[in-house]
């Protein structure tokens, strides 16, 4: 009798019935919720997803951590918009997105000021609290933690174009007829639009007149037509620069030049123009902000992770994770700075970082991006090679 009672078919039927009943009274959601106590999903620029960064966290918090690298800020934000707030717990994108778009759209949620502001006090002077990009527009809520940052304008081979000449000429270098066919264009489209604005003597982060937008379109055409190659792969671009295929590339900086520099190609250098149309400044600096996603079934580990990456050893790992190498805001503390070797500091152009930051404005949203993008993509399609 007992044997009959627990036959395979009977067992499956019983399991099915109990599962259905449990789901009906809402037991299953609770089980799922309980499972997220030790689960964390991270959507980030490469680096935070490296095992060097994540494995110690997994071990210490007995956590199941899944991390995926993103390929562009807008793409990542679009994924959250498309409903992936249910998937991710942590998102790491560049500075303007949190304050200007993700928080107003309810895609991320604030973190505890009490818990995290002391960490801002230890950062480099430019990031002391309340740090604009980490706060909501009213200045009340803390929206995330800064870590990696870097000047981002263009890159040259200093054996072919001197650093001084590149810094003095700024983006005008790419409008010089002598440069036609001698430079590549890294297709980070949003950055290119900002940099083409600067080349056209236009402030990229202000509202533009029709004449300014038309001027942008002309400069975009000129820069596309003068480019030897277009690629979204920084390794391919560095390779072309090292091999002499090109002498410079439009859109780049510490982020893209550092892997080549650490490999010994010290002649590859990110350049920040000495001057430009942005209140006299000619460069842009990006700052990553890591925020907690407004997940309807949140992970209990999200804020723990934000705190974990502030540790000196982890900060260093984030700065020098696989792919690209970048300064971190935590280098304001000698505990963190002392962890970098001379070669590593040279790879991230530590010697000129302060000057480059002074000559740069913070990355922001361009109010005419959509209109300029149409002109930009038309110039790309209609490129004369």
């Amino acid at each position: 009798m007992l044997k009959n009672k627990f036959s395979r078919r009977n067992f499956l039927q019983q399991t099915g019935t109990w599962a259905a009943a449990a789901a009906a009274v809402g037991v299953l959601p609770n089980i799922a919720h309980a499972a997220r106590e030790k689960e964390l999903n991270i959507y980030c620029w490469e680096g935070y997803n490296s095992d060097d960064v994540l494995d110690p966290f997994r071990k210490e918090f007995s956590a199941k951590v899944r991390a995926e690298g993103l390929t562009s800020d807008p793409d990542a934000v679009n994924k959250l918009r498309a409903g992936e707030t249910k998937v991710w717990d942590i998102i790491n994108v560049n500075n303007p997105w949190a304050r200007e778009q993700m928080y107003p759209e309810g895609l991320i949620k604030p973190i505890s000021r009490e818990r995290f502001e002391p960490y801002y006090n230890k950062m480099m002077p430019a990031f002391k609290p309340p740090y604009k990009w980490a706060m909501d527009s009213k200045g009340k809520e803390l929206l995330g933690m800064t870590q990696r940052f870097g000047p981002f304008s263009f890159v040259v081979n200093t054996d072919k174009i001197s650093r001084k000449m590149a810094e003095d000429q700024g983006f005008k270098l790419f409008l010089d007829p002598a440069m036609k066919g001698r430079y590549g264009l890294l297709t980070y489209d949003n950055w290119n639009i900002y940099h083409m604005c600067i080349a056209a003597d236009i402030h990229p982060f202000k509202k533009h007149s029709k004449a300014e937008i038309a001027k942008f379109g002309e400069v975009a055409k000129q820069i596309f037509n003068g480019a030897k190659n277009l690629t979204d792969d920084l390794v391919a671009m560095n390779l072309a620069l090292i091999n002499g295929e090109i002498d410079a590339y439009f859109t780049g900086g510490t982020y893209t030049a550092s892997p080549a520099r650490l490999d010994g190609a010290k002649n590859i250098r990110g350049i920040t123009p000495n001057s430009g149309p942005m209140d006299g400044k000619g460069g842009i600096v990006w700052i990553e902000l890591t925020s907690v996603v407004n997940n309807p079934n949140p992970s209990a580990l999200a804020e723990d992770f934000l705190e974990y990456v502030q540790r000196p050893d982890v900060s260093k790992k984030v700065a020098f994770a696989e792919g690209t190498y970048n300064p971190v805001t935590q280098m304001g503390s000698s505990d963190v700075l002392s962890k970098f070797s001379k070669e590593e500091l040279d790879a991230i152009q530590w010697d000129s970082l302060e000057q480059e930051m002074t000559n740069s404005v913070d990355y922001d949203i361009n109010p005419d991006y959509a209109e300029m993008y149409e002109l930009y993509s038309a110039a790309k399609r209609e490129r004369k090679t």
Partner: protein
Amino acid sequence: MAGTTQNSKLQWLRNPGVLAALPASIFLLIGFAGPLLMVGAYSFMPSRSFSLNQIPTFENYISIIHDSYYLSFFWSLAMAVIVVILLFIICYPIAYGMAKLFNKWANLVTALIAVPILISENIRLFGWVLILLKNGILDGSLQSLFGVSASGLLFTVPAIILGLVYVYLPFTLFPLVIGISMVPDTLKEAASDLGATRWQIFREVELPLSMPGLMIGGILTFVLVLGSLAEAKILGGQAIVMIADDIESAFTFAQNWPKGSALSVLLIALSGFIVFLLFRRVDLDRVIGRR
């Protein structure tokens, strides 16, 4: 009686074929038709909207017609036509050898051609970058051996064509092998006995009878090249912009899902139209040997 009629109406539901096909059909409906419908619906939403709860509009299609997207469609179509023609010329002799001449070596040749497919396309293309790069493997070797430079090959339209031919060769070759192997040797012998020259045998016997394989390989390659992206980006330095690149940009940097959807719909319609036209000339039953 009413019950009986009802039963007979629903009789088809009990058909084992229908029942067996039901899971796959549901899966296809959700996983294939569903996303396509979503793309179709988004293409009629106002520019830069992220929801389907808007008043439908044709503005995306109108803007595509007014802008220079015809250039991307043209380049994608041109690449597809050129690559298919080149692959026919390259693959026919290889396929003939594999089907009729190589005998036991045919398996080895198949393996040699098929194995690279297991490696990521981007990695294989990057290998070509190292070969074609200025001072790279080809240029460096030619310079040191013969004092001749071969720089300037990378970031050009021919480099894109090279990449496309290299990547899509197996997709033309294998259907072609099947097509050629379907041509009975006895027919060629009969033609020869009746006095046909080697060229006449090829033109009037082999080519028409291997046409189904040729068409399948051609269509497959044509559609894949039409939607290709990596070759123009990695080897071509985007010397030309393929339509797939415009679609990707619309969904990412432009944050314009409706325009990306409209471009996708047009690409699907274009591929569908061409495939429909070509398939009217191919008897699939013959290809798979049912008749």
